[in-house]
């Protein structure tokens, strides 16, 4: 598909901060993939099907029909704890901004998917490991509040290492804030669909990721509350292969479907269709009241 103008403007570099002319090695099968081909294949290994992590704007371009109107871009992070360890927090942020071309770990806005107007939030692991601080919390909340005003369904792609340490309790409180926004959004009869991508853990998995009406996940995405290392330290043994993979969660009944990336847009379109038809059906019935 042709790269829309907004994406061309947004994307100086690809999600990993690398030039598109480079080669990438598949972490799963070791195949060397030309990044232009990889991008054309939605960042899925053409040999083994491994799903690479994908940048927020790349993701948006594979999902929305055309235009995408970003909101919350002006929300910029503070440094509430005046955090500084090896580097100061502002320096860390500046580095990630430079490397990823993103202003923060989530991009939120409005667009169409298969002709359906939606609110869309996309997290990006390349910015501070997709951790949720005040900006992520604020942008997601703004997205849900505006979606509530507009009576639109909301789709959120998660990718997160959890809450952001450098914002301390302000980060933890974003779980409460986004939960509040989710409850108002849902109480108003709107549908929330989340797509869990690799990895989705900690504060994000323990809030909006698992508060949705319908929960999709990408193949082999690592999804859980505690990180693998923490669990292994706790139980003092190695975890089995596939533990916390999307397929494991499906088998244990936690999520609705595992969807390959190439089928993701059409799957979302079908669910948006059910949602729209359901709302219309209800409205027709209530019209007889």
């Amino acid at each position, binding site marked *: 598909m042709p790269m829309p103008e907004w994406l061309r403007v947004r994307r100086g570099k690809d999600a990993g901060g690398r030039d598109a002319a480079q080669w990438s090695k598949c972490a799963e099968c070791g195949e060397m993939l030309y990044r232009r081909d990889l991008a054309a294949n939605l960042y899925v290994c053409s040999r083994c099907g491994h799903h690479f992590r994908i940048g927020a704007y790349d993701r948006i371009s594979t999902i929305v029909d055309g235009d995408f109107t970003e909101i919350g871009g002006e929300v910029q992070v503070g440094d509430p704890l005046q955090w500084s360890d090896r580097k100061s927090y502002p320096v860390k942020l500046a580095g990630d901004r430079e490397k990823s071309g993103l202003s923060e770990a989530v991009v939120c806005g409005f667009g169409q998917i298969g002709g359906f107007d939606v609110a869309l939030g996309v997290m990006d692991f390349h910015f501070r490991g997709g951790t949720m601080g005040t900006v992520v919390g604020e942008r997601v909340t703004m997205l849900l509040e505006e979606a509530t005003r507009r009576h639109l369904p909301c789709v959120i792609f998660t990718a997160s290492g959890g809450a952001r340490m450098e914002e301390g309790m302000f980060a933890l409180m974003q779980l409460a804030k986004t939960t509040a926004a989710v409850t108002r959004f849902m109480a108003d009869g709107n549908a929330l669909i989340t797509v869990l991508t690799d990895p989705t853990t900690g504060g994000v998995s323990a809030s909006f990721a698992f508060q949705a*009406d319908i929960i999709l996940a990408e193949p082999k995405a690592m999804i859980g509350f505690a990180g693998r290392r923490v669990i292994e330290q706790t139980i003092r043994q190695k975890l089995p292969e596939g533990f916390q993979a999307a397929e494991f969660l499906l088998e244990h009944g936690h999520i609705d*479907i595992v969807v390959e990336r190439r089928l993701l847009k059409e*799957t979302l379109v079908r669910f948006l269709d059910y949602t729209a038809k359901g709302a219309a*059906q209800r409205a027709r019935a209530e019209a*007889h*009241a």
Partner: protein
Amino acid sequence: MNPFMDREKALLELERRIAELRTASADQPVDMSSEIGVLETKYQEILRDVYGAPTPWQKVHMARHPNRPTSLEYIAGLDRFDELHGDRHYEDDQAVVGGAALLRGRAIVAIGQQRGRDTKENLRRNFGMVAPEGYRKVRRLAHLATRLGLPIVTFVDTKGADPGISSEEHAQSEAIAQCLIAFTTATVPIVASIIGEGGSGGALALAIADRVIMLEHSTYSVASPEGCAAILWGDASKADEAASHLKLTAQDLRGFGIVDEIVPEPLGGANRDPSGVVTRVLEKIDAALERLETLPAQRLLAQRYEKYRRIGAWARETAPAGRF
């Protein structure tokens, strides 16, 4: 056990011979139509003899017939189906299948109990006996349907809820009891179809509905005939006797007002024309939804309440008023 087995074999043998003759007469100029006619007449005779007026116990076996269309065949007849999995807590119980779907352009949530169509699938599906995790999946989907404004369409086909150790450990009673609440309070139309065996509370958990459709030779009862015989007489082998006592046929239940509508089956049962039966059932569901979809939620709930409120209230209805 199966009272049809011998004569079903005879029918299969006749079918095979008729087909052979047809093939032969197509290949060569000899006219074999009279021979074929004789066999076909005999075939129809046996068919009527066996299936013309099945006893309740024979119906139980028709309802359990391995080739009788299962929930997945009905689901395959929908315009579109996106399966949704799991109870969000522990497991995705394979004895129940559910998801969002389109039926004649209408968006619905479809949920069906699924027995296996062979031994391997039977093990995976636990013979269609749903565990607490499965009923919690059903309840979750009923809530989803309510949230999204999608009518609920269920296909009932189970001997009963799973009676295993882990089902008791995981609160089977609570799971069913809460399913009953979910269906009672769902603010969307519900249409249930009894497509095979409807056994006890495990079936009812998917069958509180604004309209209940039942196939001509399906059964629906307070307990399986085997279970009933064991409970009353301590002898499960008296199941045939229990079957005739239980009034478990579609005709009985239509008469009682517990089932709203009967969908006819071909002579010999749904397994003789699965796609035709599936189509007819889906048409009935569609027609029911068409009528129900003009009811605002509050009227729908009031009507559902009254429907169940009336069942077995005869004594009260004739009692003197103003008791309190």
